């Protein structure tokens, strides 16, 4: 997945100011930044939902799966009906087999007949991701996937996502949880006010902070990240 000089404007406001980055197969890339940095806008453009005003987005031709921040599910349908609907819409030759595969992957086989509205937020998010995976994507885009989940659900989610990356899927996710980005993101892309400020590993970001604010560099990653932004006027 490649993005080159991506610009997006909403009226007078420039939400993205020439953002460029690349992610390879099996990579887990975390996009972090303050509110209004442009994380969701960038993911929407990578997903093809929004069009950039300038720049290019491309890949090696594989499908791009997209998991929006709020679960895009039909809450009055069951887990199985949701998966079956999207498998049919994706044009799977054997949609029922795909549903079985996803139920196995998400660990929701026992709850296949339950109405989605009655599931916990964590389980809804698992189905949300499973639907994103139905297109058998080479790249999976996750917009703040762990919002609203308790620590146990979050751990299960990341275990699941890491296994996907381990299988060769490129995973790009946005998050407000900086510790989560350090723990699970093989690479971190820092956005602020629509600009790309940093692209590298969490350790490389700490190194960058060490030369500017040594007292922050060795504390938790969130402190180091805030110091990094402050030194750049954000």
């Amino acid at each position, binding site marked *: 997945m490649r993005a080159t000089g991506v610009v997006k404007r909403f009226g007078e406001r420039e939400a993205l100011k020439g953002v460029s980055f690349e992610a390879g197969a099996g990579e887990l890339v975390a996009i972090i930044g303050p509110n209004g940095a442009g994380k969701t806008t960038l993911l929407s453009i990578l997903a093809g939902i929004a069009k950039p005003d300038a720049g290019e987005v491309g890949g090696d031709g594989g499908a791009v799966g997209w998991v*929006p921040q709020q679960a*895009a599910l*039909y*809450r*009055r*349908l069951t887990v199985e*009906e949701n998966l079956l609907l999207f498998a049919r819409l994706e044009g799977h030759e054997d949609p029922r087999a795909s549903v079985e595969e996803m139920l196995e992957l998400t660990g929701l086989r026992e709850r296949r007949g339950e109405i989605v509205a009655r599931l916990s937020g964590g389980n809804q998010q698992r189905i949300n991701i499973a639907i994103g995976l139905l297109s058998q994507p080479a790249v999976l885009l996750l917009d703040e996937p762990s919002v609203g989940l308790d620590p146990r659900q979050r751990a299960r989610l990341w275990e699941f996502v890491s296994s996907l990356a381990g299988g060769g899927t490129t995973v790009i996710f946005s998050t407000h949880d900086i510790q989560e980005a350090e723990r699970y993101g093989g690479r971190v892309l820092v956005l602020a006010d629509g600009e790309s400020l940093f692209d590298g590993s969490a350790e490389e970001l700490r190194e960058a902070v060490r030369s500017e604010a040594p007292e922050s560099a060795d504390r938790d990653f969130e402190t180091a990240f805030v110091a990094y932004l402050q030194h750049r006027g954000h």
Partner: protein
Amino acid sequence: MRGARWLLLKDLQILRRSPLQAVLLVAYPILIAVLVGFAISRGPEDPRVAFLNEVPPNTRINVGGAELPKANVKKQVCERVECVFVKDRAEAEERVESGDVLAALILPANLVNRINSLSTLTPGVPEVEVLVNEENAVKAELVDDRITTLLAEANLRIARRIGNEGGRYLGLIVNGGQFQVLGETVPILGLRTAARILEQVTPALPPKLRPALAEVTEFASQARDNLDVAKPLIDRLAQPIAVNKVVVGGDSPPLEIFAIAVAATLTLAFIVVLLVAGSLALEREENAFPRLTRGLVSGGALLGEKVLLGVVVGLVVTLLMLFGMQVFSPLDLGRVPLWLLAIFFSAGALGAAGAALGAAAREVRAVSLLAFMVTLPVAFLSLVPSGAVGPGVFDAIRLFTALFPFKPALQAITAALDEAGPGIGGPLAHLAVLFVAYLAIARLALRRFATV
């Protein structure tokens, strides 16, 4: 359109899984059918009116010393309203105040005497008393209309009776005959016979008396001729202006057909507009819209699927309702293909309008409210007949209602139900134009509002 099939299935599953919606979809047309059915099959109920007749028995209206035949006011009144006979004024007041009766009609004891005084040198004013409870404006208007009509009819009948008696006396004067006075029969010569006798005796009189007698004979002839003319004049006096109704335009259907068409169109409009607008807004409320339009289904296919959903459900519910109406008012089942055509076109245009509303809204509740706010006044204005408002206002209403599918849908369904009514082609063409226009608006709205 492959995806649209699965979306349609999904929407029907959601509909089935929403018990309130499903019950409303079935119960609403049944309820409307039953209400309209009862209304058109029973006709208007006679209002209950308390009746107190204080006029002494055997009192007759007297014209020129002769009593008219019994007017039988009680029978006349009670044919038109449901009479509740009360024993006195206090009971009449109590029943009116409690709402048991719409009004009370009291014929005072001196009513006939006052009518009789009209032909004397000191005429009185005959009055009947009406007790009403004007607890609201509609009831007051209803009572006024009913009582005014009742009294106008009573006055007309009395005037006709007096006219007839007057005509009979004129006939006696002109043609002669027999007249009953105080139990005795008095022969009346009559002008016609008098003139004939005078003509016969004239030759026997001395010549100098003949000119004077000729004048008397001439007067008798003139009086006879002129009084002959007076009788139809007296008859017309009771109702000087007659009504000659000539229909010059508008093939209005029978009232029961029109009532059924209005009920069916209202049902169809609310169900289709709400369902299409609501199901489209639901895609956004569930955040599924961007996921769907990311290549799974096109915007056009999504709109088409929603309109199809509205057409399918609207068709089933409206047919259910029309067949339900059969119980109360037989409809021509040979015209069912035309019903299908009218409902199909109507539901299509209404669905496209619903899609335009749904594409502009993000929440089901908001769009439901919007659909009600649009559909209700349009339906109301579509039922305003010409002449009920000023010409300028009516032209504005006609233009406004032509922009929405309700009125052409009503015209199409009326034409489909009524064999003798106007053709169905015009309304169907109108609906087709509105379908295309609203679908275009819906597509634009979807592009404009559906961005992430």
